[in-house]
């Protein structure tokens, strides 16, 4: 029986749960020194002087390094459209621009000694005015950088040739909505280590999303050949997009290791990582939507102010993803888009679960709800009237996204049915009439999102080991996704070799020749497809050997994938297995031969999973407290490889969506001091705040890859965030409340209820 489509349990869990994980902090490097980065506690200042003499004399201190000591850097711009004047130094030079910016690297025998020494470094600052509000930064006379083309503006984006024409609209709705800044907060911080080997090669241990792009970045900045650098990522404790690129602190380790002639390790504490690891989201969205009173949406326009943080990194470029997904599930003839990315004295922003696509969905789903409210029509009906229809696929959207397949209305119907939507609406009215019971809110979001949108190619290889076992090498490196289970399932289905005889190697640039990041929900559909095709290739090679063993011609050989044995068509009683094939190759007179199949799968384009999420919330009318009581998620991500792993991805995504809508927000005071730098102040959501999730799985295949699979890693976040926000507003709309920005905290909701009573 095929394993594909079955809920095979994650085989990586047992060693992880038993504490046998191989994380960077636990890797023993002989004679390693510890690095601690002294970071700025001031949001915006000139550095007049730095006094390190006392720190250098402190016990255990090996070295203290400042920007002036470096012969490398700055950190290359990640995007050609960013203003070159805003390029980031590896350590702060004459200025600090946010709290958390590394100023000095303190290297000591122990981490405690390094931290103690860091407290002895005296810095004379001349503070400068601070800008936190991105909209004020647009026109402020306080500039973060000298010589930038347009003040604090990093870049602008438009949708070329498109202009939204509202002239024929009977009704126009406008919403300004803030997509709140979040801390990704993976369990493992950006731990890293570096060690030079006698052969002149640098080994970098990394907790990221894939070693090969890290190798490129490190080699480039340290002026090394890529072959001189080996990057190793074994087990990684989460990332959510935030570790997609190595941070300056990580890149510097190789330089520090060379300078002191010893390996170095860096294990940043949580409080530092909360301001050091890139933040997610951070958009102010101006949505304008128009159409007829009958509910036909004809026009939509979105303008985004994107917070870049103090230096443009991944976040400044995210509006391009929002532009690609501008119109969501809907057929809208007239659209417009513009964005401006701007620097502020805050932590640089980057990718976070969905990276621009959840923001696009949040904007249009909020706008569609506002429009439905203004024409007094049920939000489910407005969506239904405007969906792209199945017969229209494949199609290209006004902003250029090549949608592959979609059954949007089917997901709406399934979610409405599962939630007993009509009954919920009746109950909602009854609650309002009751006068005391909690308000009920029902929120919808129908989404489509883009997966495998960046980096179309991925590497997979399979080889036969002595004894008939298989070794796979994959270019995609997991940080919680379950590649070891999924890839073994695919290989087992193709070869008939049981999963426990299949080993998967990832996360090592010496062990795997090429690879890209695991991100954008790309792994199964690209790396999985590569492994699938490489497996098929290995079977074809093995058939030739089986033919020799069975004294038949290769065309007559077939593989029974239920047993993993080859036989001549029609005579299954006489067969050979993979072990026999391996033995034969080992004993070959010309010396051992290897069966090895390699595949670089390249897709023709991204895929576009979709779905409808319905959130049900209760709001305590006296306290404003919102409780998410039901969460229905109908998701269609094409053919599902492992339903259990897909459930896990969706559950985590729904939780993060609920967290953004109700709980989480990274906050600063007006002086640029971060207020939420630990898990007491930054409310990462937990199971106790979440309901049991109701999942409805639909499977509309894509033609883009041989597995028919789309990505499911981020959909949970894309749909749930606006669904829950819409639910809160829906619960209060009878009071005349039109909008609430996320997170919908108790005090915010209470204040609005008060204003409208």
């Amino acid at each position: 029986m095929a394993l594909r489509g079955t809920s095979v349990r994650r085989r990586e869990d047992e060693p992880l749960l038993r504490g046998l994980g191989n994380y960077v902090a636990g890797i023993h490097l002989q004679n390693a020194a510890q690095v601690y980065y002294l970071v700025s506690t001031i949001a915006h200042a000139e550095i007049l002087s730095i006094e390190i003499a006392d720190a250098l004399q402190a016990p255990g201190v090996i070295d203290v390094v400042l920007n002036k000591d470096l012969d490398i850097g700055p950190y290359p711009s990640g995007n050609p459209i960013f203003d070159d004047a805003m390029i980031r130094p590896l350590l702060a030079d004459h200025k600090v621009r946010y709290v958390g910016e590394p100023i000095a690297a303190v290297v000591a025998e122990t981490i405690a000694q390094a931290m103690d020494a860091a407290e002895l470094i005296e810095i004379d600052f001349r503070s400068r005015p601070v800008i936190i509000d991105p909209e004020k930064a647009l026109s402020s006379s306080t500039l973060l950088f000298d010589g930038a083309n347009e003040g604090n503006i990093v870049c602008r984006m438009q949708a070329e040739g498109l202009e939204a024409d509202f002239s024929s609209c009977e009704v126009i709705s406008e919403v300004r909505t803030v997509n709140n800044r979040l801390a990704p907060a993976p369990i493992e911080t950006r731990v890293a280590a570096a060690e030079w080997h006698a052969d002149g090669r640098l080994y970098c241990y990394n907790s990221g999303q894939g070693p090969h792009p890290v190798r490129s970045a490190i080699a480039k900045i340290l002026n090394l050949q890529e072959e001189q650098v080996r990057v190793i990522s074994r087990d990684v404790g989460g990332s959510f997009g935030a570790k997609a690129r190595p941070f300056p602190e990580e890149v510097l380790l190789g330089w520090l290791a060379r300078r002191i002639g010893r390996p170095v390790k860096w294990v940043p504490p949580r409080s530092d990582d909360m301001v050091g690891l890139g933040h997610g989201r951070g958009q102010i969205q101006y949505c304008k939507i128009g159409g007829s009173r009958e509910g036909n949406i004809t026009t939509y326009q979105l303008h985004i102010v994107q917070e870049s943080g103090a230096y443009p990194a991944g976040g400044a470029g995210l509006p391009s993803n929002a532009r690609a997904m501008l119109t969501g599930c809907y057929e809208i003839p007239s659209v417009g888009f513009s964005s401006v990315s701007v620097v502020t004295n805050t932590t640089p922003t980057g990718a976070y679960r969905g990276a621009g696509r959840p923001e696009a969905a949040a904007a249009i789903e909020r706008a569609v709800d506002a429009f439905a409210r203004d024409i007094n029509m049920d939000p489910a009906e407005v969506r239904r009237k405007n969906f792209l229809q199945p017969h229209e696929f494949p199609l290209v959207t006004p902003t250029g996204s090549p949608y592959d397949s979609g059954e949007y209305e089917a997901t709406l119907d399934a979610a409405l049915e599962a939630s007993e939507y009509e009954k919920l609406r009746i109950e909602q009215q009854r609650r309002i009439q009751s006068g005391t019971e909690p308000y009920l809110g029902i929120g919808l979001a129908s989404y489509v999102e883009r997966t495998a949108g960046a980096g179309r190619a991925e590497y997979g290889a399979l080889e036969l080991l002595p004894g008939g076992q298989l070794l796979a090498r994959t270019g995609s490196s997991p940080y919680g996704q379950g590649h070891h289970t999924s890839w073994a399932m695919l290989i087992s289905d193709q070869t008939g070799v049981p999963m426990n005889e299949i080993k998967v190697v990832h996360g090592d640039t010496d062990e795997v020749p090429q690879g890209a990041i695991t991100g954008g929900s790309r792994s199964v559909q690209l790396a999985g497809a590569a492994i699938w095709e490489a497996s098929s290739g290995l079977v074809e090679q093995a058939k030739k050997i089986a033919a020799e063993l069975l004294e038949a011609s290769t065309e007559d050989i077939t593989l029974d994938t239920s047993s993993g044995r080859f036989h001549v068509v029609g005579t299954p009683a006489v067969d050979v297995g993979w072990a026999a094939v391996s033995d034969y190759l080992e004993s070959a007179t010309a010396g051992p031969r290897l069966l090895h199949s390699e595949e670089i799968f390249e897709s023709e384009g991204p895929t576009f999973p979709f779905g409808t999420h319905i959130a049900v919330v209760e709001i305590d009318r006296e306290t404003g407290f919102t409780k998410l009581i039901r969460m229905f998620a109908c998701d269609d991500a094409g053919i599902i490889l492992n339903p259990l792993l897909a459930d896990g991805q969706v559950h985590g995504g729904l939780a993060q969506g609920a967290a953004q809508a109700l709980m989480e927000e990274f906050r600063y005071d007006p002086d640029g001091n971060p207020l939420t730098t630990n898990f007491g102040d930054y409310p990462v959501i937990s199971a106790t705040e979440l309901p049991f999730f109701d999942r409805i799985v639909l499977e509309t295949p894509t033609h883009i890859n041989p597995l028919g699979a789309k990505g499911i890693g981020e959909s949970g976040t894309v749909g749930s965030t606006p669904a829950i926000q819409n639910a809160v507003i829906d619960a209060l709309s009878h009071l005349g409340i039109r909008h609430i920005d996320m997170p919908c905290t108790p005090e915010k909701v209470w204040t609005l209820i008060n204003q409208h009573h």
Partner: protein
Amino acid sequence: MIPAAFDYVRAHSAQEAISLLSEYGDEAKLLAGGHSLLPMMKLRLAVPTVLIDIGRVDDLSYVRDQGDHLAIGALTKHGFLETNALLNSECPILAHVASKVGDPQVRHRGTIGGSLAHSDSASDLPAAVLALGGTIVAQGPNGVREISSTDFFTGYFESSLAEDEMLTEIRVPKSPGANWNYQKFNRRAQDWAIVGVAAVRVGNSTNVSLVNMGSTPIRAEAVEAALKAGVNAEEAALHAADDTEPPTDLNASPEYRAHLARVLTKRALQASGL
């Protein structure tokens, strides 16, 4: 983060801990469960130079029936209180409130004496002991003294314990038939209360205490007085924030806290049968 350097000594009895306190003076802190102190040290908000570990003074972990009251050892853990049969039958509010502290890991290490000595106005157990009209027993070089819970909490993270005194026991009146209720308002189950209200009703007398409505846990005296004067629960609760100075933080403004105190007091009183 990693705490600043400190010396560590383990005390094997209350007596030994007290003499160590006398020896080290204000540079020392007692370490019990460590779930308030250690995070503050890691953030370097607390920088004691000596930690006196009393975590293994096992003879201070108990709940005992003393006739009209229960005696609870200072080093009794929240998880122990939560499940203790005697406490659940004779003073159920305290067992219940203990079950609302933090998460299971915290309740497995944190102690009632540590929580009271830490005197955080946002903590649950100090307010519960206050509502019960409990007594705190402190032992110092010159012997033992009893402190009424109404006199114990003196300021922001400050109690009336002297520098060389150790909190050894908490005494609470038995109240098996009492009506009681605890309202804890927070965003996540594991969090401190944004506002909390404990109500204990014995006979015709009702005690009400407030969590996180000032620099210390406080009794809602205006509510208690209103009830004594015969006002109903809903109207009495309107006085919950009288004479309070609620703090501001990321979760709530003073105005919102005052409102929450009124709403939660109403609910606590009504749930207590008023």
